[in-house]
Each structure stands twice: as structure tokens, then as C-alpha cells.
């Protein structure tokens, strides 16, 4: 039974790269285009990991994390933020909100898989 990962990012190119890398490694992937959409994709499914961008329209990554941490069925799901070097304060904010893992952009797929497999093996 493969593990399911939700990737939330408003950039379709990022989602595409991440999805390709993850599926190639044997994970199941579902996508969300912003915070709101990401939360709506959670409904009812078992999710093993959430990967999310920080800056997004409608609902940004930090707000989404805060909301997820209130949802009984998802509050313990590991969350990994996609950050850039310049967003260090955002990263701290994300950590405080409960997203303890991070991947610094730009990243190569192996680096992504490395970080993901520390949290969930396929």
C-alpha cells in the first residue's frame, strides 16, 4: 500500500516536478493549488505527508498549517514547507505553527526525495 502525499503549491511547474519525482519513487500524490484547495483535498483520505509552499493566494501556507493543526484527523500529519533562503522568518513562523520539516528552494528531485523519505518511506 503506497503512502499518500499532498503537494500544495500555486505554481503548476513546481507541482509537476514534485509529483513526477514522488510518483517515480513510489508515492501516491494528490495536488492542491493553494491553502484553501489543499485543505479541501484532505477530506476523508489518509494522508501521510503534506508538502506546501509558503506564498500562495487565497490562503498561504502558514495559515493552512495552522488550520490543519486544528483538524482532529490531520493534526498529527507531518508537514514539510517549501521555502527559499530569503524566507527564513517565514520558516520560523511555519515551525511555530507546526510544520517542522522544510525543503529549501530551488531543489533537485534527489534532495526532495531525501527529505521526504526521512518522514515517510514509500
Amino acid at each position, binding site marked *: 500500500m503506497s503512502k499518500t502525499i499532498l503537494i500544495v503549491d500555486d505554481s503548476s511547474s513546481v507541482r509537476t516536478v514534485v509529483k513526477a519525482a514522488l510518483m517515480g519513487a513510489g508515492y501516491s500524490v494528490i495536488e492542491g493549488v493553494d491553502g484553501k484547495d489543499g485543505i479541501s483535498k484532505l477530506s476523508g483520505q489518509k494522508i501521510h505527508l503534506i508538502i506546501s509552499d509558503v506564498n500562495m493566494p487565497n490562503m498561504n501556507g502558514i495559515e493552512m498549517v495552522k488550520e490543519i493543526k486544528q483538524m482532529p484527523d490531520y*493534526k*498529527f*500529519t*507531518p*508537514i*514539510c514547507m517549501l521555502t527559499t533562503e530569503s524566507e*527564513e*522568518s517565514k*520558516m*520560523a513562523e511555519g*515551525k511555530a505553527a*507546526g510544520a*517542522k*520539516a*522544510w525543503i529549501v528552494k530551488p531543489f533537485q528531485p534527489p534532495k526532495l526525495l531525501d*527529505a521526504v*523519505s*526521512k*518522514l*515517510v*518511506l514509500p
Partner: protein
Amino acid sequence: MSEESDYMEEGRQAFAEEATELLEQSESILLRLEDEPDNDELVNDLFRAVHTIKGSAGIFGFDDVVSFTHVAESVMGRLRDKELGLNDKLMSLLLDSRDQINDLVRQVIDYPGEALSDTLRERGDGLLAQLNLYLNSEQPEQADSPQATEAESESAGEGAMVGSDCWHISLRFGRQVLANGMDPLSFFRYLSTVGDISSMTTLATELPDLNSMNPEDCYLGFEIDLKTEASKEVIAEVFEFVMDDCQLHILPPRSKIADYTALIDTLPEENMAIGEILVASGALTHEELREALQYQGEHTVIETISDDDHLPVEIVSKPPLGEVLVDKGMTDTRLVDAAVNKQIKVKKAKQAEQQSVRVNADKLGDLINLVGELVISSAHTELKARQTEQAELLETTEHLTRLVEEIRDATLSLRMVQIGDTFNRFKRVVRDISKDLSKKIDLKISGGDTELDKTVVEKISDPLMHLIRNALDHGVEKPNVRLAAGKLETATVRLDAYHDSGSIVIEISDDGYGLDPDKLIAKAIENEVISETQQLTPAEINRLIFAPGFSTAEEVTSISGRGVGMDVVNKNIDALRGQISVESELGVGTKFIIRLPLTLAIIDGFQVQVGKSSYVIPLDLVDECIEHTNRDNQDVKGEYVNLRGEVMPYLHLADVFSEQSDGEDVKPGNNIVVVQYAGQKTGLVVDELLGEHQTVIKPLGQIFQNLKGISGATILGSGEVAMIIDVPALVGRVTRNGRDTGDASQLH
């Protein structure tokens, strides 16, 4: 985040200081070893110093420092174990390695996160290749990989390391880790892709009762042995997402027992039994421990031990378990001792910490400033008390003044350091330069334990270096020249320090060429420092070398003569309120004599009245006070009094500072204060003697920089400002005046 990085930054600074200190220590040890190659203690100290640098560098992840230092340490380890002998070549290599470590440390501190420069890396590689030759005598083919070197150094070492060839990872997770969505198991699964987990001990000592536990908190700790070729960095990165949320310790394969002791000391389990410690440290397996306990024949141990909990305390405190383990050949005596002595060691470490406290220099500076203010305030109080003429109040204030004096002395002594460390640094300079110049030079040091103010020590270092280099370069001859001149082949350069009437005297002398008066004069005339007709005393001729832009070196060499002349040395020493003089005899040698004040901040002063103003004369320089009776030759330029049969020149301070006597309540020029500086006695004529007075020196502003005869100002108890008399300058003036009148008395 920022708090953490501040903390790390502070740590890095501490590391930089510690490493600098240890590296200086290493250098002086190496140089001492050249004279005492059989001194085992020195070799031990050397090893320990370098080992400590490696250890601390590891904590901060300075891998470049660690990897190089490790190999150098290994060679030193073999030296300590007498598997290597010390010769000239190895000595040079170790000195160069020390320099390399020094540069690596500078690099990681000054340019954090940047790659090594090519030169540094290449030099490192060259040195490593040479160092490895000293390690490779047994297993040359393995020397390339650091892992092999590690193993090698261990086998070459004291054998006091655990048998395990695994990395040891010690983990204690924070309570929140599960709630944060981080499952330790997922990190272990990932870890098993990095290496082979050969043993895993799950610690549940922190786990509370079923009823009182919070099932969403994490209470577990883990001790893991991992077999891998991966680096420490890679292993640490496995846990990067829980780094904020756990305590992580990583020990490399075949770590020293001391490293395990350190780990034992840092583990949080307070009542952790010895058996558990050994198991947790990876030194013993569960099986071995179980067997040992059964052998001891006490209760149903297996259950108890395997639960990692509530091992009866008696077992811990009784020596038998340790003995049992050792008897059965299961563990190293020293490791058992390490565990048993956990508490003792911790206590000892604490004691050692108390012996010396590191204080920020700025804080010390603030304290000294405050004590300065206290001194002024106390003087003021005493003055006011005296005016009241109340005996009791006077008594208390006098007591207070005494205490303040003690506080002042104690505070100033905090900043006093021995000059020996500075001197020892020159050993290396002499060694290197004499090789470059193919001269044979012996550096003799005395008075290294002489103490002076740290700021003075720091500022005197450069001028001293210049003088030493000059002595090496221009002062002493090449061996063949020396032999031809009937001297010993090996030249001697001496560095001496001693106290002399409130000053520190540092002498730099050599037994080389000596200064050639004819050459000096010719050069001075050529550079228009003097005119052709000018007549100079021998002392003045020698002083010519301090004239700006003056150099007698025939050619500019790489060692000295870099355009920074003796005039700069002179200026630097002036700035410290010091003086430099030179004595020399052609063909015999040259001696530079530097006099420095003990401290820059507070002095005992002798307060005098001249006209309407108060002046302070540094008490250390005051010899005696006499009444000024003989005023017969008052209008003759260049005045002398007969001081018990000795002719002594004197000066009217009123003339020097253009003071108008008010002539009413004081008799002008009534007293002579006899001051002595650099062997020269001089009288200073003053109106009134006001007595001793603690003087906090306030530097004069830029405008007054060129004021002759004044070295600073101070604030008196009354709030009045008094000038501090620059005795050396005045003494110098008197001797010059003496020469102008053609009198030769000052030569005696």
C-alpha cells in the same frame, strides 16, 4: 531562531578564543620540545591541546579543521606512545601543521561557510601527505581514507578505546515530537538506508505510569550503533527535522573512552545504573551485561535489566558489578571507572572551571573605569571629611580610603598578565628567521613571569617584534663572519624583563655587530637629520637610529627594513608613556632598553602646588623632597644643587608651565621634588607639597597632544583638574640643557 544563532555565534567566539590559546600553547610546547625532546609531559600536553581543538571544532561542524587536526593529532599520538622519535624534520612538520590548524581556525571563524582558499587547501594536502607518512609505516595502503586513519591511530594509540567499530548515536526526543507529526521510527527507517543499524537500545526510563502518561507525548530515548561509511554530517542530517526537538550525540567509530565518558556525563538519565550506562554507550551488549549480572548472583536480573528501569540502586553503588565485568574480561577497567566516577568527574570539572573565569575585556575595562571614579569620589569624601574636623568621620573615611586603594590594586591586578607568552612567541620567529638567513642564533629569555597590564602587553608586541627582527637581520653576523671576528659561531639574542622603580623594563640585546657611529653620522648627514658641523655625544649618535626614515641597513631584506623604521617603534612606545633607549658598542653588540609604566589607568601621584595650579608627579618616580635653600645661582641657565655631594640639575616648574606665583600665602619655589628616571636624578622646584594622591589618568584630548611636559590630566577630590607631569620628558629636557651649557656632569 535568532536566539539560537546568537547562542551559536557566542559559542563560535568562545571556540576561536580557546583554539587561539591552545595553538599558542602548542607552539611554545613544540619549541620547548626542541630543547627537551624527552619530556613526556610536554608531548602529552601537546596531544591534549590538539585533541581539544579537534573536539570543539567537531561540535561546531568545522569539518575542515577536524579532518586536518585529526591526522596531526594521530601523529602526535604516536609520538606520545614513543612509536615515533622527534627529529628536526618532524618538528618542522608539526610546527607547520600547527600553523595550518591556526589558519584553518581563522578561516572558519572569519569566513563562516566559505570554501577553503586554494592555497590553504593545497598546503593542507601537502602537509597531510607528509603526516600520513608518519602514520603509514604499518598500513600504508589504508592511509587515504579518514576512517582507516582513525582506526590506525587507535591501534597506534593507547588502546583505551572501545572495541566497537560503529558510530554511536544517542537520541533523546522531545515530548512534542509525535504531536508535531514526526515519528522517530521514520527517521530510523531512513537511517537504515544510510548504514547498517547493528544495535538499537530503546530507553523507557522517562516513561511515566500508564495512568499519568500523556499518550501523545514522546518519552523514549534511543542508543543506536550504526555501521556506515557515511560522514558525521550525513548522519546528523538524518535528524535535521527534529533537531529542535531532540538531543542528539554522535560518536565516531572507535571513539576514545574519554568521549564515552563525556557522553555518559551528558545523558539525562540521572539514576542511570552503571550497567545501563555501559549498554547505552555501546561498550557492552545486553547479553554481556545480563550474563555478568547472573554471575553476580543477584535476583531476577534479566527482567529488570531488560526493562531499562528501576535497576536497584545498590547494584550501582557497590563496586562488585564493575569488578565482575572486568573479571570476566568483558570491558575495559577504565571504562568501568569512567562510569563509576561519573559524579566525581563532574565535580572535578566544576572545580576546574572555578579556578579560572573568562571575562570579557570590555567588562574589565568598565570595572576599571568605575574603580577610577570610585577613587576620585573617595578622595573627595576624604577631603570633605577633613574639613569637618570630626575625628570619627575622619577615621571612617580613612578606612574607606584604604579599602578603595585595595580595591584599586586588586582590580588593576586582574588585568595584569605575564609577558612570558609574548616572549615565547618570538622563539618561533627566531627559529624560522635564523633558518631563512642561515644564521645560528640562540634566543635567551628571562623574566617571562614579569607582569604588566594586558593592554600594554598587546601594544608592545609589535615594537618588540620589530626590534627582534632587526636584531636577527642586521644585528647579528653570519656564522663565518662571527668566527672570523673571534666570536662564538652561535649568536645570542636576549629578551629580558624586570621591574625597576615602578616601571617595567624590557631589554632586547644581541652580541652582533653593534652600531657603527661613523656610519650613523654619515647616514644622518646624508638624510639631513643633522648638520655636518653638529657635535653629538655617543648616546645621541646611537639615538639617531630613531630619527624618521633612518635606516643603516645596506640593503632592504625581506625580514625587516620594510619601510617601517625605528621611528615607528619609538612612537609606539611613546604612546604607551614609555621610553626607549639604546646602548651599543661596535663589534660587541647592541642593547635596546624599553621602559614602560605598569599600568595605563591609575597611578599613585604626588600632588604639588605651583602658582595657582596643582600638578601631579607619578609617585613611583619621586625619590625624595628637599627644601630649596641655595638660591644663589638662580638666574644662571642650567641650575644645579648639591645633593649630598652629588650635582643635581633642577627645573622651575613655574617657568616650565608659565605659572604666576601669587606670592601671598606660599613662598615661591620653596621645595624641590627629586625625581629619578632611567638613572637620572632631577629636581623639580615647586611652591608647595600637597602629599600623596591617587590619580586616575584621563587622557588629554587631541589639542593637547603636543603639550610638552604633560602626560595627562586627572580630577582631584575637590573637582579641580590637575595636570600630570611627564617626568621622562622633563628629565630629558634637563639633560639636553646640561649639554648645551657644555657641562658634563650629567654623564656621571
